[in-house]
């Protein structure tokens, strides 16, 4: 899931300074699971901003609305009524949703209420750790299901490096060495010979953007495709 973190209140207040009516737009998918921007968080932020505005003697109305996802046009349409008379919208969705909202309502001032951080897993209550770097060329099949691109500080393909001490990465004692984890799991699976392979460099051009995927089999049927006669006339 995409993991995000809510921005500090002071930063958000600064962004909406001078606005008379502000909407806090929540998203009930990834950001809800990491407790950064779901329905509850949107309500809490709206309440906090209301308290802050009243304390500062400002006449600022804050409303909130949450949809299932902000990365689908059908869900973004649901904001239409409430967004109409708002001067600004603070979106608590990930960067994808914030941009979706901004594109759907191009005349509205859309502001980010969260910092989108990484693709990660909720390892335990209250803890989310990065797991995937979206490199576009997955090698999890040869690394015992542990990603060295995301979990190794140097994204080594043939680790570990000399900084791996006691199973920990040299950057921090809290960070396990990804290659140690890979070694341990390969050993458990009786597949240590995989470690002896030299992994060749990745096609890094696949991991940087702006990326796009097009599937012709899933695209909408065009009018030409619908009526073959029009093809002959053309």
């Amino acid at each position, binding site marked *: 899931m995409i993991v995000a973190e809510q921005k500090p209140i002071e930063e958000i207040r600064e962004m909406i300074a001078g606005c008379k009516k502000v909407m806090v737009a929540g998203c009930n998918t990834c950001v809800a699971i990491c407790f950064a921007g779901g329905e509850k968080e949107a309500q809490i932020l709206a309440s*906090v901003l209301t*308290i802050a505005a009243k*304390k500062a003697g400002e006449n600022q109305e804050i409303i909130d609305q949450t949809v299932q996802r902000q990365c689908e046009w059908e869900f973004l349409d649901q904001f239409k009524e409430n967004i109409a008379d708002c001067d600004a919208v603070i979106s608590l969705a990930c960067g994808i949703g914030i941009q979706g909202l901004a594109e759907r309502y191009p005349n509205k001032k859309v502001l980010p209420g969260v910092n989108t951080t990484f693709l990660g897993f909720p390892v335990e209550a209250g803890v989310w750790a990065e797991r995937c770097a979206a490199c576009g060329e997955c090698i999890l099949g040869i690394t015992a299901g542990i990603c060295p691109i995301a979990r190794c500080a140097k994204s080594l393909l043939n680790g570990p490096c000399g900084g791996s001490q006691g199973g920990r990465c040299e950057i921090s004692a809290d960070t396990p060495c990804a290659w140690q984890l890979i070694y341990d799991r390969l050993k458990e699976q009786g597949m240590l010979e995989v470690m002896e392979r030299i992994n060749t460099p990745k096609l890094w051009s696949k991991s940087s953007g702006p990326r796009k995927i097009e599937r012709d089999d899933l695209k909408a049927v065009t009018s030409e495709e619908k009526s073959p006669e029009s093809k002959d006339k053309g």
Partner: protein
Amino acid sequence: MRVECPTNVKIVEVPCTGRVDILHILKALEKGADGVCVIGCLEGECHFLEGNLRARKRVGYVKDILKSLGIEEERVDMYNLSAAMGQRFAEIMAEATEKVKKLGPSPVRRADERFSNSD
């Protein structure tokens, strides 16, 4: 028990303080409450095991929010006592009321009064 208790406290009963949400506390402050007390069972004696411990964490979170807003964090606090301790309950009510009185009216209530006066 015939124990005296301040009359300015609005009591909201919940089955366990674990039911109290951050939003509940914030909404009370938003609507003009000068202070909020969350009163739960003695630690280690929660009937639902961890409810009062979770409540303490949430009260801590609200205190952090208040600090970042420049509002006195002492307005919100957590107290622990057993349901049998009537005398202590009255003491807590008096203690909390005194503490909040010293801090003065909530800045939110002052703002609401200002707006309604200017209408």
